[in-house]
């Protein structure tokens, strides 16, 4: 067995027992990357020299911390001091931040070794990572298929053993959907649980930083490091951060699980429905109480989401104007042309489309019918969840309506592409935590099961997700040999 195949907690054990040095671990990681990256294309940039230096420093105890010398990857939306941060956009192709994101800085402070920056849909707008301005990432389970998105690079890299864990962001499903497509664990914490500081914003009221890992235990370990209030993010809450590893006890007897009928309806692949229902059965057999419930406004979550998210995005992406950083049209002789030309050249078509949509939704005459109405719908969705959580501990549903689709299959039809998020956006609209874990295979491709929890109750998600690993034996799913 190669070191790169191991989970973070396995590597930590080896490292603590002096059975593997950080240098060996990091070397193994780069060996794997050089082996498979030509096929998978998960990384936008690698920071190999620095990573090897840090690994050596960790071995000589000059780089201490809870995960000293342990490799990880960051979606290229996390700003990294002195290291290009592109958001997979031509606009930021040469942007070198002078600051680190809080989440990234916390991993650095814990001794983590950043391996590189991972591919994504441009500015996190997309569900397939085909919207990267640079190249598409391929699903390690089937290289002709997408890894999902927008954090597709993060999911693919973990799935392909290129890093034991990675951080991503989830605005409408951008962690859970690619985790489902790639057969890994993907946690989107509660809005306000992890600092957004230094993470390039797509939709500020929906964005949240989260974790990709090979198993649930690693997810808990990483959450212990990144969760908690950051004075630089006014929306990161002062809520006590528990030791998430304490939830790794599989004790789900008596746990009340809600199964929303709207998530098992039209448009959701029958094979996926079946896989999740089987998983629910296993929960019941293990002593959980499973009941069907209704989240009646679910079908309105997606249209409302696309209005709220794009409206916020239209403002968040307005700062890319060619003045202080980023791509600039140097020929324009007046500032309006300079703005417009720089933005048109710097942004890809999906980004432009969403900026246009959001601008429209906020513009005079349309604000009430679109943006304001969407905020009202958002409250209804929030209240749907509240009602269910008055009686239940968590909600279980499929993560995605289909398994990973073919590269190119949905290009050119934005609305069809948006439909991929139909089961994930309600969580973002309600600000809730959600985790996707693999619950089986369908035609050789991973199926994701989504667990949705109460605000700031990531612990229960981790507990139930871990329990499923235990009772199903599905843990650390690996793509078949020979694919990569």
């Amino acid at each position: 067995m190669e070191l790169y195949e191991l989970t973070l907690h396995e590597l930590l054990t080896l490292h603590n027992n002096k059975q593997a040095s950080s240098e060996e671990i990091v070397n193994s990681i780069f060996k794997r990357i050089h082996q498979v990256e030509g096929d998978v294309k998960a990384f936008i940039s690698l920071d190999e020299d620095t990573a090897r230096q840090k690994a050596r420093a960790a071995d000589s105890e000059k780089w201490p911390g809870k995960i000293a010398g342990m490799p990880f990857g960051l979606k290229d939306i996390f700003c990294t001091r002195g290291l290009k941060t592109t958001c997979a956009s031509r606009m930021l192709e040469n942007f070198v931040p002078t600051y680190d994101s809080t989440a990234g800085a916390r991993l650095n402070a814990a001794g983590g070794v950043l391996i590189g920056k991972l591919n994504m849909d441009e500015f996190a707008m997309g569900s397939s990572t085909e919207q990267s301005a640079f190249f598409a990432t391929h699903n390690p389970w089937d290289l002709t298929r997408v890894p999902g998105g927008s954090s597709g690079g993060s999911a693919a890299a973990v799935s392909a053993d290129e890093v034991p864990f990675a951080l991503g962001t989830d605005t409408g499903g951008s962690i859970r959907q690619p985790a489902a497509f790639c057969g890994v664990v993907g946690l989107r914490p509660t809005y306000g649980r992890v600092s957004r500081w230094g993470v390039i914003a797509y939709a500020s009221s929906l964005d949240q930083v989260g974790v990709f890992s090979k198993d649930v235990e690693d997810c808990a370990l990483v959450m212990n490091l990144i969760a908690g209030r950051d004075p630089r993010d006014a929306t990161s809450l002062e809520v006590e951060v528990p030791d998430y590893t304490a939830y790794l006890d599989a004790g789900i007897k008596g746990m009340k699980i809600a199964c929303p009928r709207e998530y098992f309806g039209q448009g959701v692949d029958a094979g996926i429905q079946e896989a999740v229902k089987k998983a629910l059965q296993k929960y019941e057999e293990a002593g959980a109480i499973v009941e069907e419930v209704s989240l009646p406004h679910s079908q309105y979550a997606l249209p409302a989401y696309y209005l709220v998210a794009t409206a916020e995005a239209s403002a968040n992406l307005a700062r890319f104007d060619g003045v202080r950083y980023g791509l600039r049209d140097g020929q324009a002789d007046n500032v309006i042309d300079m703005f417009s030309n720089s933005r048109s050249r710097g942004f890809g078509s999906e980004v432009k489309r969403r900026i246009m949509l959001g601008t429209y939704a906020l513009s005079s005459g349309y604000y009430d019918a679109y943006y304001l109405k969407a905020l009202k719908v958002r409250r209804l969705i929030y209240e749907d969840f509240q009602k269910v959580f008055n009686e239940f501990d968590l909600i279980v549903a499929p993560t995605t309506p289909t398994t990973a689709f073919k590269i190119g299959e949905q290009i050119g039809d934005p609305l069809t592409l948006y439909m991929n998020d139909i089961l994930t956006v309600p969580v973002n609209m309600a600000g809730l935590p959600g985790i996707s874990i693999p619950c089986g295979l369908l035609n050789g491709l991973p199926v994701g099961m989504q667990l949705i929890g109460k605000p700031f109750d990531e612990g229960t998600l981790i507990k139930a997700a871990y329990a499923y690993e235990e009772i199903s034996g599905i843990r650390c799913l690996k793509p078949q040999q020979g694919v990569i």
Partner: protein
Amino acid sequence: MALTIKEVEHVAMLARLSLSQQEKETFAVQLGTILEYASTINQLNTDGVEPLDHILPVFNVFREDQVEPSAPREEILSNGPLIEDGQYRVPKIL
């Protein structure tokens, strides 16, 4: 229903995007389709529903009025496409 080219141009002006004729035509159709789908929310009766503009139950998050060191000028300007006399240079306004 597709947007008119004029509507697309107006929105592009607000968003400071210069679109090709091809892009305008594509967006007119695509945005029309997406907006039609988005309009399904108007089927819902939301009378008396307060818009949810902040999801967190939190208020009054402050910092103290304390000066912290600013960024070194060379550092903050290092990403600037065109710098002159320690300032960002832009083409004429009008």
